[in-house]
């Protein structure tokens, strides 16, 4: 058969990292299962240690796996097509993350627009309100639950607003860093990326402060404070975890740049981290609107 020469698609040989990763996930899942069960039953156990060991193993796996990938990439084994695979893989991964957040946003919107009004007797639930929850009035944020737990709502001004500005700015600086990389302006690249990381760290610290404020006696906004507290902490919490992850990615990129990695043409890893960062920002915008403002 006569074919013109195609770029060959790199198929890595055997790798032991995936199985290490699978064992690590097993330790995490089994450890976490034991851990929360033991907490609930108020007994001590080895679950927590197993969980921590699993996390450590995952980190080991990620580092090992990615350094393989980086070496292969640096030694020019990857074709354009391979790069394309990574890009598409990353975008669909981000899409799956979007759907994960969608579940929690769905819960928030359901509670606000359906279950809380229903508990107050809206729609076909007149008797629910009248017979089961006569004392209850629907409000959002739900500062008094049907069973009478009270709490306060987190305002959108102050910390959350500052955080919004921080994150939005960091998205812009991340973009500038990317532009600088494409222009091969390394000093600017380092400066913009460094600034992005600083903004991310400040955001995370402020988020911790905000939680401390929520858990203060003054606000009494707990994870257990009814559906408002539930959605507030779950959404901001998962978002915060993603910011942390994104931030770590950016820091890794920073060090790789210091080591002289990436070229204007070939910088998938940087691109992926920056996509992830933009995604985290967009989620925050939704959060800010639906959790804080509305």
């Amino acid at each position, binding site marked *: *058969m006569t*074919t013109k020469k*195609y770029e*060959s*698609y790199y198929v*890595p*040989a*055997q*790798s032991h990292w*995936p*199985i290490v990763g*699978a*064992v690590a*996930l*097993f330790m*995490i*899942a089994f450890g976490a*299962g*034991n851990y*929360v*069960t033991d*907490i*609930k*039953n108020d007994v001590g156990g080895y679950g927590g240690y197993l969980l921590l060991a699993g996390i450590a193993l995952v980190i080991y796996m990620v580092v090992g*796996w990615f350094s393989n990938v980086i070496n292969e990439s640096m030694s020019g*084994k990857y074709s354009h*097509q391979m790069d394309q695979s*990574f890009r*598409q*893989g990353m975008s*669909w*991964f981000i899409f*799956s993350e*979007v*759907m*994960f*957040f*969608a*579940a*929690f946003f*769905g*819960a928030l919107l*359901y*509670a606000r627009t*359906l*279950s*809380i009004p229903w*508990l107050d007797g809206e729609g*076909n639930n007149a008797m629910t309100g009248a017979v089961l929850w006569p004392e209850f009035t629907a409000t959002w944020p739900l500062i008094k*639950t049907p*069973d009478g737990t009270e709490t306060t709502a987190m305002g959108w001004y102050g910390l959350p607003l500052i955080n919004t500005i921080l994150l939005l700015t960091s998205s812009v600086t991340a973009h500038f860093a990317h532009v600088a990389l494409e222009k091969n302006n390394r000093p600017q690249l380092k400066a913009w990326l460094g600034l992005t990381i600083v903004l991310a760290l400040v955001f995370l610290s402020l988020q911790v402060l905000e939680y401390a404020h929520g858990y203060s006696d003054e606000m009494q906004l707990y*994870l*257990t*404070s*009814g*559906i*408002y*507290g*539930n959605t507030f902490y*779950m959404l901001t919490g998962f978002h915060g975890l993603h910011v942390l992850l994104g931030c770590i990615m950016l820091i890794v990129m920073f060090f790789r740049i210091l080591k002289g990695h990436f070229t204007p043409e070939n910088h998938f890893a940087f691109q992926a981290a920056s996509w992830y960062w933009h995604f985290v920002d967009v989620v925050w915008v939704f959060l800010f609107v639906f959790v804080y403002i509305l």
Partner: protein
Amino acid sequence: MTTETVNESLDESHDDEHHDHKMTGIKRWLYTTNHKDIGTLYLWFSFIMFLTGGALAMVIRMELFQPGLQIVEPDFFNQLTTVHGLIMVFGAIMPAFTGFANWLIPMMIGAPDMALPRMNNWSFWILPFAFAILIGSFFMESGAPNFGWTFYAPLSTTYSNGSTAFFVFAVHIMGISSIMGAINIVVTIMNLRAPGMTYMKMPLFVWTFFITAYLLIAVMPVLAGVVTMVLTDTYFGTSFFDAAGGGDPVMFQHIFWFFGHPEVYIMILPAFGIVSTIIPAFSRKQLFGYTSMVYATASIAFLSFIVWAHHMFTTGMPLAGELFFMYATMLIAVPTGVKVFNWVATMWRGSMTFEVPMLFSIAFVILFTIGGFSGLMLALTPVDFQYHDTYFVVAHFHYVLVTGSLFSIYAGAYYWLPKWTGHMYNDSLAKWHFWCSLISVNLLFFPMHFLGLAGMPRRIPDYALQFADFNKWVSIGGFAFGLSQLIFLAVVIKCIKGGDKAPAKPWDGAEGLEWTVASPAPYHTFSTPPKID
């Protein structure tokens, strides 16, 4: 069976330098990045899970053989039902299809392997661990999950038996596995098609897996979200599904079924792909209406996102909601009908032979359609008030899942076994497998319709006397069907060990790139992509 000579030029003679030789022993399987190895792993795993889930079903059927509590406690019965459902759905059917995808998609589109081979290995190896946790919970003090595969809150939260955390984390890692597997399929298809293989030239098989993978990426994270809420409701004091805190148990069902309904199509679209490959091959006639098949598949996938609440007609939804979900659900019959009609049109004026893959495919078309009909009846809200949570529903979904998904898997397995193993399967044993399965499966599941209509609820360990006769028959059918599946095990083992040497293309009507390479398929295929015109 007539054969053709192999297109020698595509045979594996020019190995690329980076293709290491395969390791041997256990390490080959643990470390492999080869799509064929990983496909094999998936297929064996799924078959083992099928036997495990089936064994649980056998205990269920023994208990239900006659009225009275015979061999298990009611609570253990619920554990059996739950784990049976979970294993069959997540452990048997889904991994089997991923196995097919791994083995065949790269060969069908002329790719050297899956796009992300290491991730591919990871996706697989997570599964045995996830199921070890799930099945292991049978041996824990708290027992296995006992709240149904649908784990409705608050039975799975406040009122659960304490193994919820294990269930939740097992589902989490299963979900990670599925998402990674799906991303791999999507990227492979988008990026690794041989030059000239446009989207509308892809085999329909590839299309169905492509669309299924999108469904997976869209809904598995939602499942992860809802199990997370179950976890926090159970262990961390949240009240997503508790009215006292402003939540709603029905909200659980909305989120769950937003995942759950697309999930059932995840288990049938690949089946459509397999059957659409086999029927043309043995009718010796091109698939009728390829384009409309692609669009029908896409419409089913789209509709699957807006019908979820048909599982919830009795939850007290507002009238407008009930009407919307009834109409949307009924609509799915249209694209599905298009598929059925296209299959029939493919057979029409063909030149048919009835090898075992074809037998299973024909059985699929008929029995899946029967399952579809009962689905349509369930979609009619007022009547669903009578059918809901009875054995009528159990009959419906076993028809679409067992004589649907599972039969398509058998069809596909027989069809590609020669390519996988290099040997022909033992035809008479395979025919025994088919006919025994066909008869017993109907004895097993058809009377369930009557039981449901007569009013037998599902998920009960004991029942009123008027249900006794049919249950006896159902159980006998069940044992017979279970034993028949052991024939398949025998066929596969014999086929791996030996048998007539399979030519590159054992089926004269078969089409597709996978038949242009030798049987068994060489370890690496298409290091340089073939040209499609």
